[in-house]
């Protein structure tokens, strides 16, 4: 997905850009509203991440102008303010959602997905492997023309495999992707989700292999 991050704090922006890039997203960073408009006019984005306090204006004004320009790109506001005071204003001004600093990237991703899903019309985010189609936005898994909606963790796990078919992922790596930092889970928990994915993939040419001692990988039948 292609993101535009409007955030004046350089360190935070760097980290966000770096972290989203790890998940394969393309992120442009604008430090001011002025450069943000330049980016928006030059390219199209799937999603805009917007900070409120910016050096050359208020993010809320940007939100209003953005909606006035009938730009449909969804906006998620990254707010540092108290949720109680800001909530009403942001959603009323046309934000699609908001996330409070500091945020968990999996939560940000989940919110992005929810926003995109709600908006519908956006070109589906498809990945295909060996005839199996995965739609990251809706969580739909299509096998032989039948579409099932995956549960959140199944989707996130399958996304990891789809990004690099054939590559072996360690249990701990997969764990990190699936569970939040506050969850205390044993590594065996990952087996549950791999098991579920295998069931989902039944009847297709794709399967998830156990590589003893190393982890798992996704391979085609051939």
């Amino acid at each position, binding site marked *: 997905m292609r993101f535009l991050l409007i955030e004046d*704090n350089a*360190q*935070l922006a760097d*980290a*966000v850009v*770096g*972290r989203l890039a*790890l998940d394969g997203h393309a992120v442009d960073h604008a430090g001011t509203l002025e450069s943000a408009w330049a980016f928006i006019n030059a390219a199209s984005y799937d999603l805009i991440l917007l900070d409120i*306090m910016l050096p050359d204006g208020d993010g809320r004004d940007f939100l209003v102008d953005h909606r006035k320009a009938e730009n449909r790109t969804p906006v998620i506001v*990254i707010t*540092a*303010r*108290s*949720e*109680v*005071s*800001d*909530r*009403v204003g942001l959603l009323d001004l046309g934000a699609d*959602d908001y996330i*409070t*600093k*500091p*945020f*968990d*990237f*999996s*939560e940000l991703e*989940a*919110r992005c*997905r*929810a926003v995109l899903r709600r908006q519908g019309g956006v070109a589906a985010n498809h990945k295909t492997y060996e005839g199996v189609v995965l739609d990251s936005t809706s969580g739909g898994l299509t096998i032989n023309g039948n579409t099932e909606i995956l*549960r*959140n*963790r199944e989707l996130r796990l399958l996304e990891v495999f789809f990004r690099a078919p054939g590559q072996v992922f360690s249990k*701990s790596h997969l764990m*990190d992707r699936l569970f*939040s*930092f*506050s*969850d*205390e889970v044993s590594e065996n928990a990952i087996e549950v989700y791999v098991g579920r994915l295998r069931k989902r993939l039944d009847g297709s040419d794709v399967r998830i292999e156990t590589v003893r001692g190393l982890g798992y990988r996704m391979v085609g039948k051939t």
Partner: protein
Amino acid sequence: MKGLIAKGSIRRRLVLQLGAVAAILSIAFFLVVQVVADRAAQDTQDNIIAAAATAIADALYADRDRVMLELPYSAFSMLGSISQDRVFYRVVERGQTLTGYDDLPIADSGVSKNTRRFASFTYRGEMVRAVTVVRSVSLRDERRAVTVTVAQTQRGRAVISSRITATATAIAAVFFMVATGLSFWAAQAALRPINRVARSVARRGPNDLRPVVGETPTELVPLVGALNSFIARLRVSLLRSEEFIADAAHRVRTPLATVRAQAELTHRRLNKPEHKKAIREMIRAIDESSRSAGQLLDHAMVTFRTDSLEKTPVDLVGLLAETCDRLAPTADLKDIDILRDFPEGPFEIQGDPVLIQSALRNILDNAIKYSPDDSQITVRAFEDDGFWLQVRDQGRGFGDADLGKLSQRFSRGANVADIVGSGLGLTIADEVVGAHFGRLVISKNKKGTGACVSLVFAQP
């Protein structure tokens, strides 16, 4: 209002003062009429008796060396015209009574020719009014001074006088009543602008901090001006505290966000399990502090807003649905389903939607936090002697904690040491429902595990 003692009404004071003035004027009017009327009656009687005396004096004539008198009866008929008054007369020449009542006193000292002298005195047991005139009659060789005195009782005058008194009293009374009525009206009219200003101040809600505008009487301008400047200062200080809370949040959260994002990035890049573990610990600590900071600030904001509660119509079901939408992605991360059991119609109450949503978010957030993966949270809205908004999870419940104490600040369940939390969530919810005259109901699920938290609002 404490400390404000209502003492003395301007209206009453105005009415009393105007009434007193009216009373004084009425009495003065009465006295003046009395005196003038008395005087007029006196003058009339004086003129008549003087005319009678003159007529008698004119009837004096000289017959050789004697003064003769032929009483003109017309003079007496003139006197009789007033009323049933008795008339006395005496004509004296050189100390000799020519005719009339011998004992009628004559006040002729200082009475010269062609003048007359009036006197009032008691004669034969009655007040009389007397006039004395002196006439000189020419005899053959000398001129003789003859004194004519005519006296009349004052019954007629008393009758007239009392009639005038009665009329004057009636007029004064009517005047007094009309004046008092007018003073009520005048007080009312004079106070109307004050009442208008007072009403426009009293009508405003607790959060209406606009200045008082509109027509204001000159006398009230300093007072209203002072009130307006007070309102302006209050508004500034309220805005400042709201800004302060927001600013504090910003200053705490932005660096935390940077640290967390960097840590997460580093965590992904590191390979050694012990390094990863260290970063995990760090992120958990960041989450804990940011959550506490967030809830402290939210709590400050909730306290601030409940102090100056602004009430608008709120649809509880709508708010609950919105909160569920908002938290669904968070629940989704743990594969938790939020099952909704809402009625058709709205549950409408008067309240602060921002506060109520904050309370709902806190209890739903708690439910998600303490729920196991792949579980369900049931969110219900129903009517049962009030509007119930209920969140039921399949988590670990509250353990053996005292359910009554859970809503106290920083108090947490007995079995949650391993989960990040500040213990303010239920406090916030409790304060919010308290401010709306509702209550927080915490219970254990009847079967199985899990907690059940309800916000109960009174039906309007």
